[in-house]
């Protein structure tokens, strides 16, 4: 059985080296997120919005939503990629300044989920854009979203060092 996802090991590693130091190095103490819905059922949106409520309060980690991809460091993609939204997603990605990260959120963005057999479904997000972190779940818990956003920064660092 090879079901060990290595969650704890990765997380400890992330904590040891200090997330705020990483954020400072790459994004100047804050990370601005552009959320794009490419065909979601709004369950993921409900969880994404919960990040900014007083309980999860992701602003304390230096994460913020922004309305323009030109101000964004991270593109948070939710939903099954539809034919109509594929060029829009591409344009949004092209409008982002570098360095830029892409986080695929929810089973629909990762695989297609229950929409995988639809004729209007283009494919998983990583077939169109390079994805830095994957967040599974239908919908993913806000805790999972937080971890995914922090993992995206980790993945960028790993790619740079290799």
């Amino acid at each position: 059985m090879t079901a060990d996802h290595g969650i704890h090991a990765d997380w400890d590693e992330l904590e040891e080296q200090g997330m705020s130091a990483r954020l400072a190095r790459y994004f100047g103490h804050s990370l601005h997120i552009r959320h794009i819905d490419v065909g979601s059922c709004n369950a993921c949106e409900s969880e994404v919005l919960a990040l900014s409520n007083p309980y999860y309060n992701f602003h304390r980690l230096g994460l913020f939503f922004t309305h323009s991809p030109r101000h964004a460091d991270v593109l948070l993609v939710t939903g099954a990629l539809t034919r109509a939204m594929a060029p829009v997603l591409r344009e949004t990605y092209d409008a982002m300044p570098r360095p830029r990260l892409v986080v695929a959120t929810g089973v629909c963005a990762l695989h297609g989920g229950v929409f995988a057999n639809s004729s209007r479904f283009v494919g998983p997000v990583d077939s169109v854009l390079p994805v830095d972190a994957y967040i599974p779940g239908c919908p993913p818990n806000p805790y999972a979203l937080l971890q995914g956003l922090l993992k995206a920064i980790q993945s960028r660092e790993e790619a740079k060092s290799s």
Partner: protein
Amino acid sequence: MRAEWLLSGLASGRVTTTYPRQREQELSRRRWNSVPTLNGPCSDTACRECSEVCPTDAITRVETQGNAALRLDVGACIACGRCVDRCPEGVFSWAEAIDRAEVRKERFISTVEGGADQ
């Protein structure tokens, strides 16, 4: 309701989660039935229940020389729980972890080798 929430926050000293810092404490405050995991090998090579009930084809059975190997893709699982309810062997159970984000998609896939060919 809101006053109650505010008072409980004032009493405990905080209303905001400390999630990335005190991960274990935060997650242990609740039971999470987020996603199924594979418990062990499946000995029934004729049974197709799990792969048939799965709505997103997250579970696949690979038949090799009479053995049944199971493959579970958490990245495709919508946590409907049908496999946990329907499996007569109890191969699937709920995982407790909820923060399962990964940087590589392959890490969502867990496999179990086929049961011994007796």
